């Protein structure tokens, strides 16, 4: 019974959001000092009843939301609620998992990402991804950055591009004399910034980040967070994080997910609440959101 009521409440709150209902209509302030209006005018991703399956198992059910251009959107929620699964469906990384399947409608600048004539390679070139574990290639620092432009046959001055991307990733000064050295010689925090440099080298317009700071120390985390703020001027960023302070610090909007248990005892992830970060953190609509961000749950 309680379950039922909770999901009703969730439905209630998400419809509230889409119609800009009783939530604080006044613009919220994201942490990088930009006005965050209640509604998203410049939509990059439009999700309508997105569901993600692994074989018969439905990991994510009925997510409807929009991701705004040049915003930082944070996905938060307890472990196993499908944040990574949903994130990987944005750039069709789930295609690589046998049996994984996406239903519903997921558009990118209005184009259906899963339309039959869409090339996942093109999708991934425009929508970059940074992973939890810094997955630098066993190559030199230079070759790591140059890899993407090379496989995409971009006609660029490679030396300039490498310098530009490493500079944007706030890594250039630390590595400019060691470009030929193995990327494995870098620290974890440097590796993660190298991965970000590698990602922006193919000139994407979205960067998806799945717990990018989970294996970093606080100083490296602060550097990556600063970098995200800086990158948000040119890129749309979606970040999954377990760190509430991080979500509050860096993001403009926050989506809270949780997992419902169905009658057969199977857990399915669902979106509970989505809105400007300030509203989510100061005046959440759903008691589960409040419990989660205040650390009482999850």
């Amino acid at each position: 019974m309680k379950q039922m009521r909770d999901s009703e409440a969730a439905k209630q709150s998400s419809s509230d959001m889409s119609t800009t209902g009783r939530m604080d209509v006044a613009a919220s302030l994201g942490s990088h000092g930009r006005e965050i209006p209640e509604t998203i005018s410049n939509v990059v991703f439009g999700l309508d009843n997105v569901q993600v399956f692994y074989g018969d198992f439905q990991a994510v059910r009925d997510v409807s939301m929009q991701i705004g251009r040049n915003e930082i959107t944070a996905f938060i929620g307890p472990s196993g609620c499908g944040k990574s699964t949903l994130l990987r469906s944005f750039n069709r990384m789930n295609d690589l998992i046998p049996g994984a399947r996406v239903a519903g409608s997921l558009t990118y600048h209005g184009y259906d990402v899963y339309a039959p004539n869409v090339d996942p390679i093109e999708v991934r070139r425009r929508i970059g991804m940074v992973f939890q574990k810094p997955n630098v290639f066993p190559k030199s620092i230079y070759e790591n950055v140059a890899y993407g432009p090379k496989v995409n046959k971009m006609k660029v001055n490679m030396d300039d591009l490498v310098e530009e991307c490493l500079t944007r990733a706030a890594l250039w000064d630390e590595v400019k004399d060691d470009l030929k050295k193995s990327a494995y010689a870098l620290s974890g925090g440097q590796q993660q910034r190298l991965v970000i440099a590698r990602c922006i080298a193919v000139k994407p317009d979205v960067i998806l980040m799945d717990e990018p700071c989970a294996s970093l120390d606080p100083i490296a985390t602060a550097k990556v967070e600063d970098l995200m703020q800086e990158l948000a001027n040119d890129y749309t960023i979606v970040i999954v994080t377990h760190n509430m302070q991080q979500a509050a610090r860096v993001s403009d909007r926050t989506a809270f997910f949780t997992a419902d248990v169905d009658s057969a005892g199977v857990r399915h992830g669902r979106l509970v609440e989505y809105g400007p970060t300030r509203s989510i953190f100061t005046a959440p609509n759903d008691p589960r959101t409040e419990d989660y961000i205040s650390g009482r749950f999850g």
Partner: protein
Amino acid sequence: MSTLAQATPAAADDNPLRQVKARNGEKVIKALLATAAAVSVATTFGIVISLLVPSITFFSEISITEFLFTTTWTPLFANPQYGVLPLIAGTFVITIIAISVAIPLGLGSAVYLSEFASSKVRRTVKPVLEVLEGVPTVVYGFFALEFMTQLILRPIFPGIQVFNALSAGLVMGIMIIPTVASLAEDAMSAVPGGLRDGAYALGATKRQTALRVVIPAALSGIVAAFVLGISRAIGETMVVTVAAGLMPNLTLNPFEGMQTMTSYIAAAASGDVSTGSIEYQSIFAVGLLLFVITFAMNALSIRLVRKYRQTYQ
């Protein structure tokens, strides 16, 4: 003056950290494992010594220069000559043919299995490969002689001899494919999935991911697979004994019959050479040479692997 209390050592038996259990089981296991290791080291030494002792007698009669640099190998003739070059040439030619088959096809199958095949295909093909590795080599020998030479090579190259290096080399290559494929596939499967995800997320295709990320990352294992394949080719005996003929022949022409170091050893050891004779000792001299060559190959491969080793975190 220090105000910190000095720790007074407690009486031996109330020390909470003292060893209570004897843990004898651990000692037994350690001893057993050490014995196992010692047996294999001792065996290697035994082999070296049993090769060295007769070889020393052999080289007191035949100089090392004569052995290595003259071109006629006729130990069983009335006027025997011990120039090992024809055997080295035979080994060399057949090994080259074998690895030019085994390395590309083995690596190709490994890339296919690890990067392209569905997990169902992989689960069926991998065990088949491993079974193929266990087929007795004499079977491959007859396959080379009866099938490869008679049905395939003869119609294409009518002048080819019945016993020839080409059929032995080709079939030996086919025989080694599973070894190379299986080891290289292991090396590529061990590359963390995160690296592939990283490449795909940049818009790389499967081919680009396989060739430019997975293979470089697995290079040390792949090189090891190649070296093992080459070592098997050099050391392979039955296929060449059956299909390449037993005539020492200093040539690089693969259409002719040849004898390799291994097939000489097999033939001479099963013939009626008398123990202690110089022909008998020549078996060990050739064996020692084979040992040195294989040892050098392995040492080289260890250096290569160290040089190219890519460690994952």
